[in-house]
C-alpha cells in the first residue's frame, strides 16, 4: 500500500504527460485555425478575382477582344469595337465579355489559389445591368470548389460538410465615355431638332412618325415581311 502511495507521489513523467495533453489540444486548435485561415484566404481570393474581373471589364467595356488590357490596345481591338454597345448591342457585348471571363477565370485562379481543385472555377452569372440611358454596371458571380489544407479536420469537427465551395459576387460601373457622350449629344440634337420643328410649325409628330415608318420599312426589308415569316 505504501509502495502504491509512493508511486503516485513521484513526479517523474509529469512533463511528458502534461505536454501530451496540451499538445493535443493545442494542435487541434492550431490546425483548426490554419484550416479556417485557408478558408478565409480562399474566400478573399475569390472575392478579389471577382472584383478584378468586373473592374477590368467595366473600365474598358467597349473592348471585347483585348488580349492584355493592362498594357496595350491593338488596332484589332479598336476595329472590333461594336456600335450601339450601350443600347441594342448589350446582349452581344454581354456574350463576348462573358466568353472572355469564362476563358480567363481558370488562369486567373491558378495565379493565387492555395487550394487543390478537381474542377475549374465556374462563372455562376454574368449580367450587364442598365442603370440609365448610356450607363450600366457589370455584375459577376463566380464560384469554385477546392480542397484546402487540413479541411479533413474541419469536416471532422462538423465545421464544413463537404469540399468547400467559395462564391463571390462583384459589381463595377461600366465606363464608356464616347458612347455616353453620344447619348448626351443625341439628346441635345433631338432637343434642337424639336425646337427647330416647333419654330417651323408643329411637325414633330409627323417627323417622329416618319422615323418610325422608315425604321419599320428598313426592318421589313432586312428581316422580311410578316407574311413571309408566317410562311
Amino acid at each position: 500500500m505504501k509502495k502504491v502511495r509512493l508511486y503516485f507521489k513521484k513526479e517523474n513523467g509529469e512533463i511528458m504527460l502534461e505536454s501530451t495533453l496540451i499538445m493535443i489540444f493545442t494542435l487541434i486548435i492550431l490546425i483548426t485555425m490554419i484550416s479556417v485561415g485557408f478558408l478565409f484566404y480562399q474566400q478573399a481570393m475569390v472575392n478579389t478575382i471577382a472584383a478584378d474581373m468586373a473592374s477590368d471589364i467595366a473600365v474598358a467595356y467597349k473592348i471585347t477582344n483585348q488580349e492584355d488590357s493592362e498594357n496595350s490596345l491593338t488596332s484589332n481591338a479598336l476595329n472590333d469595337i461594336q456600335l450601339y454597345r450601350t443600347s441594342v448591342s448589350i446582349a452581344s457585348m454581354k456574350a463576348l465579355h462573358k466568353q472572355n471571363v469564362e476563358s480567363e477565370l481558370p488562369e486567373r485562379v491558378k495565379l493565387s489559389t492555395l487550394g487543390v481543385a478537381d474542377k475549374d472555377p465556374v462563372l455562376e452569372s454574368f449580367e450587364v445591368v442598365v442603370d440609365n440611358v448610356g450607363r450600366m454596371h457589370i455584375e459577376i458571380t463566380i464560384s469554385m470548389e477546392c480542397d484546402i489544407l487540413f479541411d479533413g479536420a474541419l469536416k471532422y469537427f462538423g465545421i464544413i460538410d463537404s469540399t468547400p465551395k467559395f462564391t463571390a459576387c462583384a459589381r463595377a460601373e461600366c465606363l464608356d465615355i464616347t458612347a455616353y457622350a453620344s447619348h448626351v449629344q443625341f439628346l441635345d440634337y433631338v432637343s434642337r431638332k424639336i425646337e427647330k420643328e416647333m419654330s417651323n410649325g408643329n411637325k414633330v409628330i409627323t417627323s417622329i412618325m416618319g422615323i418610325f415608318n422608315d425604321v419599320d420599312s428598313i426592318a421589313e426589308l432586312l428581316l422580311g415581311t410578316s407574311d413571309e415569316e408566317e410562311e
Partner: protein
Amino acid sequence: MKFFTKRKKHKYINGTKGIISIFLCLIMTPILTLASALIEFSRYQNTETIFQEVMDCSSLSTLANYDAYLQKRFGLFAISQECNIGETYKNSISENSNVMEGMTIGESVSAEGILPLSDTDVLKRQILDFSESTVLTEVILEDLQLGELIKQLDKLMAIEGLLKVLVDTNTMNQKIKKMVKTGEELVEFLEQLIIKIQSLQGKVNEALSLIADLYAKLIEDEFTIDTTSEESEKKSYEYLVSNYLDDIKKIHEKEEEVNDAVEVVTQELVHIPDKIVQLNNDFTEAQKAIEKVLDDIDAMSGEEKTSSTGETKDATVQLYEELLNEITNVLEDVTEDLSDTIIATFAAAIDEHLEQIERGLGLDGSKRWNAGYYDLPLSDSAKDTLEKLLSELSVAKEISNDDETNRHDAIVSMLKEKYVPDAFYWSISDIKTDVNDIIEQAKVSFLGGLKESLGNLLTNLINVITSLFDLDVFYDGKLNAYLNEETLATLAYDSGNNNPYVSLLEALASIISAVQSFNEAIENWNFFAVLDGVTNLYNALESTVRAIVELANGTIRKINQLVTYVTTEDWEAFGELLLMSGYLVHNLPNRTLVGDNDIEIDTSLAIKTKLKGETLTGFSYSEIVTPQKVVSGGVTGETDDSEESNQSATSAILELVAFLDFLGDTQTGGTDQMFRGAELEYILAGTPSELMNQVVVFFEIYFLRLLIDLVPIFTDISVAKMAAAATIASWVVYLLEVFAEPLCDTILLVNGSENVYFVKKSCYLTAKGIPVLVNDLSEVLINNKTVRQSAVNKVNAALTGKFDKYTDATATFTKGILKMDYATHCMLLLMFTTTEENMLGRMANIVQLETNYYYEQKESQQSFDIAKAYTGLSATVDVEFDSFIKIFQSNSQSALIKKQFSRTNTY
C-alpha cells in the same frame, strides 16, 4: 570549464525546467509563419486591386482634360494639348494613393498619351461612336427616307440590264458601222465600174477609128478585089495583106484591148450581186442589233413603265418600231434599185455591145484573128474575115465621095450606126446617170428626211448645252484656298493631287464637237460628211466610254466592297460606311452653304465667307475660325462679271480642262490656306486646291447623275417623242439627252436646289420639262451673284419655247422619288467612290487645319498637332508595399514587395 563539471552537465541536460516554452516555440513558429504569409498574400492581392482602381481614377482624371474645341466642333474626344499628361497624372496618382497606408510610390511614374486621332482606326471609332444615334437619325429623318431608298436601289440593281444595254449598244454600233462601210464600198465600186466602162467605150471608139482609117486608105488607093478568077482574087487579098499589114495589125491589137476591157468589166459585174447580198446581210444584222438594244431597254425599264403608265410602254415600243421600219424602207429601196435597175440594164447593154463589136469587126468567135492571118497564103478563115470587113467598103466609098474632109468621122459614124447600137452608148451613160441618181436620191431621202425631222432640234439641244456650260457654275470662285507646301507638310495624310475627270471632260468635248459637225453636215446637205460625222460620233462615244471605264476602274474596289456588303448582307459594315459618310456630310461645310453675301473682311484682313448651317453638335459653320494669314497673288477663280461669253460648248469645256491643268500645275495660289467653305469637297476630291475640289465633285455628281438618269431618259415618253421625230438620227437625240440631262441636275444641285429627285420619272429637256427647269434654275440662279445674269438669260432663251413642237398631249412632267440635295448626293459619292482610308485621312487633315488655326488665333498662340491629340493613356507606376510584420524586411529602407503596375485607359 570547471563550471561544466560532469555532474552539472548531466543535471543540465536532464533538467526539465522551460521545456514547455521550447515546445511551444517550436510548434508556433511555423504556424505563425504560415499564418503571416497568408495575411501578406491576402494584403497584396487587395492592395493590387485597390491600386489598379487608383490608377484608373488617375487616368480618368487626366482624360478629363479633354479638348473642348474638338468636342464641340467635331464631336471628338482627345486630351487637350494644353495639358501636360505626365505631370497631371503624377499629381493625381500621388493624391489618390494617400488612401493606402503602407504603400510607397516610387519615382518611376510615367504616363503617356496613346491612340492619337491621326491614327485612322482611332478616328474611325470616335466618328462612329458619335454618329451611331445622331447621324442615323439625321439620315433617316432628313436625307434618305432610307427604307424607300434601299427599295429604289434594289430596283437600280437592274444595273445589269443597263450594262447589257451598253454592251449591246456597242455591238449595234459595230454592226451599223459595218453596214455603212459596206454601202460606201458598194458606191465606190460602182464609181470604179463606171470608169472602167468609160475606158471600154473609148477603146471601142479607137477600134472603129482604126477601121475607118483603113477604109479611107483603101478608097484612096482605089483598092478592089478582083473576083474574075480564083487566082486573081487570091492575089488581091495577098496584095491587101502585104500592103496594109500594119493597119490590120493595129486593128487586131485594138480589138485585143477591147476584149481585155470587156473581160475586166465582165469580171467586175460578177461581184455586184455578192456586194448587194453583203449589204443586205449587214443591214439585217444591224437591224437585229438595234432590235436587241430596244429589247434590252424595254426589259430594263419595263417594270417601271408598266407600273406607272401602262400605255407608255406600248407607245414607246411603237415609236421604236416606226423608226426601224423607216430605216428598213430606205435601205430596201436602195438595194432594190441597185439590183433591179442598174445591174439589169448594165448587164443587158454590155451583152448587146459585145455582140455588136464582134459582129462589126467580123469576129464572131470561130473566126477570130490568129497568127495564120498575117501569113501568106491566107487561110480560108482569114480570107472570110477580110471579106466581111471589106463588104462595107462600097458604102464607105460612097461616104468619102460626099465629103473628103470629114471622111474619117463619117466612116466612123457609119460603122457605129451599122455595128454599134445606140444602146451601147446610151446604156453606159444611163448606168452612170442611174448610179448618180440613186446616190443623189439616197442623199436626198437620208438628209432631207433628217433635216425635215430634226428641224432645229439638234441646234436647240446644242444651244442648251452651250448655255449651261456658259454659266460657269463648276466652282464657286470665292472658295479658292490652296494649300502650299508648307501647310501640306503639317498634314499627316497625303491625299494626293489629281483630277481623273479631265479625260472625261475631253471626251465630252469631242462628243459635242462631233454632234455639231454632224448637224452642220446635215445643214449643208453633205452626205459623206454626215457619214463621217457618224463615224466621229462613234469614236467620241467610244473614247467617252473608255474614259468612264477608266474612271470606274479607279473606284471599282470601293464599289465592289459596297456590293459585297449588300450581297453578303453585312449590314454592320454597310452601316459603318453609312454613318461615316453621314458624319462627314453633316459636320463639314460645302459650297452650297456659302451665304448670299460674297465675303466679309474682318479687321485682321482675314477673308471670310459667310456660311449657313451648323454641325450635328450645334456648332455654327460661321464660327469656324478663319486663317489670319492671307496669301496674295493666287488664283482667285472669280468670274469676271463684265465678260460677255459667247463661246461654244466645246470651247467652254476645253477652257475648263485648261483651267484644271493650270490648277494642277501651279504650286501657288488661293487667298488662304484652309478649306473653310468646301471641306466636304476636299474629303471627296482631296486636292490642295479648293477650286479643283469643287470641279471634281461637280463632275463626280454629274457622273452619278449620268448613270441614274439613264432610266428616266429611256422611259420618258416625251424624250421618245423627240427621238422619234429625229427618225434615224434618234440616237443622236438620245446621246445629247444622256449627256445634257444630268448636266441640268448637277447645275441645280451645286447651286443649292432641293428640287432634284434621286430617281426621276420625267426629264427636264423635254417640252413638258423645260418650264420646270426654267423655274428651278431661276430659283437658284437669280439671286446667286456668282452667276452672270446674262448667262442665266441665255439659258432661259435657249430653253424657252424651243421644244414645243415635240409636245405630247398625253405626257406630263411627273415628280420623281426621293428629293436629294447636294449634300446627300455627296454622301452617296462618299459611299460609292471614296475609300475609307481617304475619307479618314482627309478628315484628319481637316481637323488638323481647323483646330490649328483655332489655337493660333487664341491668345496663347498654341499650335495643335493631331498626332498628339491622344484619346487614351498608358501609365506605368512602380510601387513598394510595406509588409504587415516588419520582421520579414531585411532593413527598414527596402520594402518586401515591389511591383510595377501598368494600365491603359481610353475615352
